[in-house]
């Protein structure tokens, strides 16, 4: 019987949300192809987190002191060894920074190519078609794996619904990889956070967020005035903070803040996935963009297609008038 093997990531011993989404994606493939579902996570088999993987028929706890801190070499070697034992048809991973780091190496070691950041899985007559975004979300591409196995894929955050853990509990098998300290060629340091926060974007009810469409630092007063008129905090996409036009603590997205305000007004932001993951929980999204095909409109409740240099001043004036 063929197997779908899902590798999960744990934080404080529990599988992360995106990992459970990957498990759900794996379950979908297993159901459609009649395969068994197996799950694997680094940690001690006695850990409580393994109890949350009930959807899988087989659970592996990958245990080795050399895996305590993540390294690409350690993870690639261990995962490759488990794959050699299980011989799965599909390997599913969550598309996290860590997976981006080692999974291409893992796939290469197996002579395969990882289909990364998958947003959709379709099954038709035994053929599995995987969708991923191109051009930062402006286009979708459909892929399939050609002869050979396994097919490796990583799934985008939020693309699959994490199922509640099934009541049944699979037995957990400890897998001890054969690792050698000398084969780990990088020495990772402790993670740290940049300077202390002085604004708390997460608690602001209204946000005006500015992107590269603003073109120049000198144009920022335009959005600042709109934010003031609305009584909103100012946020930004990454390129604005990278350029130093606004401090990094105002950056929304996967490498910045996660926000869920009542109103998120995106001005000149295209809507790349790394931005969307930080704000798609907003109750209402308004987008102003000159490109009617900008991906931000896919998640916007209200949209204005137009030149922000005309629309924003008009909006500031209209807000001021409404507020009297």
């Amino acid at each position: 019987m063929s197997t779908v093997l899902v590798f999960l990531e744990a934080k404080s011993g529990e599988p992360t949300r995106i990992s459970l989404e990957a498990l759900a994606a794996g379950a979908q493939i297993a159901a459609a192809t009649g395969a068994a579902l197996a799950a694997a996570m680094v940690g001690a088999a006695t850990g409580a987190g393994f109890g949350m993987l009930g959807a899988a028929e087989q659970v592996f706890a990958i245990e080795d002191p050399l895996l305590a801190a993540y390294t690409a070499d350690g993870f690639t070697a261990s995962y490759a060894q488990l794959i050699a034992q299980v011989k799965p048809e599909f390997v599913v991973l969550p598309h996290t920074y860590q997976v981006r780091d080692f999974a291409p190496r893992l796939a290469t070691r197996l002579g395969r190519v990882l289909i990364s950041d998958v947003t959709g899985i379709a099954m038709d007559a035994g053929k599995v078609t995987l969708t991923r975004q191109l051009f930062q979300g402006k286009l979708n591409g459909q892929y399939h794996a050609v002869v050979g196995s396994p097919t490796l894929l990583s799934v985008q955050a939020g693309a699959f619904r994490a199922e509640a853990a099934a009541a049944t509990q699979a037995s957990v098998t400890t897998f001890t990889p054969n690792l050698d300290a000398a084969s780990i060629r990088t020495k990772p340091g402790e993670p740290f956070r940049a300077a202390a926060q002085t604004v708390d974007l997460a608690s602001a009810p209204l946000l005006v967020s500015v992107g590269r469409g603003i073109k120049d630092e000198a144009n920022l007063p335009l959005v600042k005035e709109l934010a003031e008129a609305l009584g909103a905090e100012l946020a930004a996409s990454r390129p604005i903070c990278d350029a130093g036009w606004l401090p990094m603590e105002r950056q929304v997205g996967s490498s910045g803040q996660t926000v869920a305000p009542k109103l998120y007004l995106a001005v000149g932001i295209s809507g790349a996935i790394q931005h969307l993951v930080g704000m798609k929980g907003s109750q209402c999204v308004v987008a102003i963009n000159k490109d009617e095909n900008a991906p931000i409109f896919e998640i916007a409740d209200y949209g204005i297609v137009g030149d922000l240099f005309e629309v924003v001043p008009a909006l500031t004036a209209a807000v001021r008038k409404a507020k009297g």
Partner: protein
Amino acid sequence: MKIIVAIKQVPERDARIRIDSAGKWIALDEIEFRMNESDAYALEEALLLKEAQGGEVVVLSAGPERVGQTIREALAKGADRGIHIASDRLGEYDALGVARLMAAAIADEQADLILTGLQSDDLGLGQTGVILAELLGIPHSSLILKIEKTEVGIRVLRELEDGWFQHIEMTTPALLTIQSGNTRLRYATLMGIKKARSKDLRVIEADALGVDAARCVSLDSVMLPSRQKTTQMLTGTPAEAAAALVEKLQQEVRVL
């Protein structure tokens, strides 16, 4: 230090994207091309290291003839020489195939450091660098913002999720994939542009590298995404659209 920088030429950021008649890729006839964004940062890091440590910066790019123009741009900014893997049919390779071409083209270079961008702005697989490291049998780190030389190798600053960072120490030779945004990019000077014309640019035909193009992954079609949410579009003049939005914010969203 000898540093190789892999640079991909991609469509201009604001390019109008139209799907070609076969539905397999975008129509390229009206597209302008430029250097992939994170690759421009990789080049900048390489030039900064060379300025501090001495050494050589070699630019590597695979693609059709027009790629030569992007290599020249890198040479004008200060790279010492270029390698162009020439092919009009790069789309027949998957990422592993493209990385094999690159590995074969630089096999004799004995570089201390290979830098690639984190991810391309067009296909965006975000893997070519890491694959290349495995093919070459050297360690790598991805999502790198800063590189410092140490006694035994290098110390790099890696970006993690949600505003966290980490330092990693590693030996060389090594491959790093560079994240955009940590430095200011330089412009090519007139002098640089003039000098670039006489710098060495070696063209290697992809077919001559003996790499099997057989793919393990196939890109079957491309399409415009479908909307997940129904967006109410507010139309009219800027003043009309603004007035309509204010009304929605008052009546429906109730935030005004």
